[in-house]
């Protein structure tokens, strides 16, 4: 069918969905590249650490993680991280054990007991504690806190010495440099993290739930035990995991207050020997031979992978539990 002349449809315009101007194109490009920098950073850290530590990992095999001998100067260098790895877990666990009750209480007091102005001051103080550099905590831990904590350790040993945790081999010991004190130092560093996560979650609690429980005749205790704690348990767990990540990565402060030893210390937390991977890296680094240097890189790789996994899980838990409540 011939079309009448002069009525031809206008040419179809292409629909554009992308950026409309050159400036926008650059704006989007820059921000996208910048955000992918997060992946890039993780990839770069993995690649560089792996490249530097590969010879050591290949040579040591799985014994690198589980053995307990560190002799990098031998003809065939032996580097095994077992006691340090166990020490990191032990100190982090002690730290969490000490910090969690304090942190949950502090969050409870701030959200549910203090009046606005006092609560704000307390929150600021907790955040300030989080901002204290670890070298300052280490200085305080070594010169001010260790003597006090050693006294606590002595009391623990004298009153509860029959428990297997509180025995010590050497009766004339000074009770310093033990995993017990390192655990306290780690607790000081992770209390603010757990507190702020818990506080955030407590303050997002549905007030209707609490009021409902009170209307049904609940008291402070039953509301806490049966309403507040169950609804915020996962979030608190996330906060504890965040603290765990920080505890495993803690380096300088632990180095001051713990006697690092390749003689593995399973449960005797008052003994002056323990371990921490991060501190071991720093302690050995100064006079490391090339072979040992590779072993320390491998140790760094291990804590990087562990803390990355712990942090990812922790952040997922925290953001999930916050999202569900809203």
């Amino acid at each position, binding site marked *: 069918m011939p079309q009448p002349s002069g009525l031809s449809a206008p040419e179809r315009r292409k629909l554009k969905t992308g950026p409309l101007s050159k400036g926008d194109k650059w704006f989007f490009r820059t921000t996208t590249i910048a955000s992918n920098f997060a992946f890039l950073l993780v990839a*770069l850290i993995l690649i560089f650490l792996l490249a530097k530590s590969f010879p050591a990992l290949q040579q040591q095999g799985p014994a690198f993680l589980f053995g307990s001998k560190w002799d990098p100067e031998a003809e065939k260098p032996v580097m095994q991280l077992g006691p340090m790895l166990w020490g990191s877990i032990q100190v982090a666990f002690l730290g969490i054990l000490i910090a969690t009750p304090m*942190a949950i209480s502090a969050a409870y007091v701030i959200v549910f*007991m203090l009046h606005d102005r006092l609560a704000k001051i307390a929150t600021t103080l907790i955040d300030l504690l989080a901002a204290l550099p*670890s070298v*300052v905590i280490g200085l305080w831990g070594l010169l001010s806190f260790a003597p006090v904590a050693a006294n606590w350790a002595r009391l623990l040993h004298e009153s509860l010495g029959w428990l297997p945790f509180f025995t010590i081999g050497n009766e004339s010991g000074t009770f310093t440099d033990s995993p017990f004190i390192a655990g306290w130092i780690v607790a000081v560093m992770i209390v603010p993290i757990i507190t702020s996560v818990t506080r955030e979650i407590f303050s997002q609690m549905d007030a209707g739930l609490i009021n409902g429980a009170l209307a049904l005749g609940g008291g402070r205790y*039953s509301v806490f035990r049966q309403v507040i704690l169950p609804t915020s348990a996962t979030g608190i767990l996330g906060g504890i995991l965040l603290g765990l990540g920080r505890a495993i990565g803690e380096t*300088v402060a632990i180095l001051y207050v713990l006697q690092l030893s390749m003689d593995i210390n399973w449960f005797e937390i008052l003994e002056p020997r323990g371990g921490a991977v991060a501190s071991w890296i720093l302690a050995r680094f100064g006079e490391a031979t090339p072979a040992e240097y590779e072993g320390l890189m491998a140790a760094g790789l291990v804590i990087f992978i562990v803390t990355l996994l712990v942090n990812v899980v922790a952040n997922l838990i925290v953001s999930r539990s916050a999202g569900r409540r809203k």
Partner: protein
Amino acid sequence: MSSIASRQPWADRKLTDNLPAVIGSIIPAATAIMIAVLAGLDFSFALIVIFLPLQLLSAAILGFRYARIRGVKDALLVFGSIFLSTNVFVLLMSVLYAVVAQGITAMSPQFLAQNNVYVNTTTSLEYGGVGHAILGTLLIVLMTTIAAVPLGIAMAVFLTQSDSKTKGLIRTVTQALSGLPSVVSGLFILAFMGFAHLERSGFTGALALFPLMLPTVARVAEEALRLVPSDLRLAALALGAPNYRAFFQVILPAAKSGIITALLLGLARVVGETAPLILTTNANNGTNLNPFAGGIATLPTYVYGFLGSGYQTSQLRAWGAALVLLILVGLLFGFARVVSRTKTDSKRSKNKKVK
């Protein structure tokens, strides 16, 4: 936080109503512990064995008088949580007090201004100081900031404005990176230096702080940008502004205080980092303002170095440097509080006017 607290029934009751009874309940336990300590018993031992049981008992009695058996549990919860949370503040105060009390003895104008060229571990405190370390810290942190803050803000822009599918993953990775152990960051740059044939210098120190500062800035800046109502951006776009102008002329000014907070918290995060600097820079007793060559001193490594030797004067030097570091962190932190507070306060007053 405040809104919830005010909605709770018990918040209507005045705390002062119970005050005489609460204070009264502390008296017996406090007296007992004072007598015990005066009699020569160890304080922490007496706290656990004498004060705690007595106080729990009197709290229980108090609770029982108010609400019978249910009141006992409530009173124990209240007392227990106050006792435990007090420990947190005692620990914090102990750190602050120790640093201030010891650091002040080392403090003097000369300690702040001079460097350490003629100082060894036993030199008396009248000579030398942390001047070079302050300059070194500022220099290194400045270099890190120049790189990390724009990049962190760009990441935050992507996380708030993009509808890309990878956004959630990027946010998770960024959050996880903000828990990166500082020693790993140092080792990473050390490995990188091996490949790039870089010498240890202030610049490599700044590189090692960069992975620590970036996620902090990105996270706080994202929260700040999220607070800007999306209507503002959409209105700017509807008026024909391209995205980048909408960002620079509308969103950024609106989120200014939040962005400054991100900068300050990022600074506070890295200014005290020790392990990466020990791994990637050489110590120096003199002033070095060239970031690309030679050793450079920083406050954290200064503390670390002088604490290593057991002499009294070196320890005092370490306390002094720690006090300077603490003041620096406190200032950054205080500024961040002031900046973010002025914003929320002005918002609140606007809301009141509407009501």
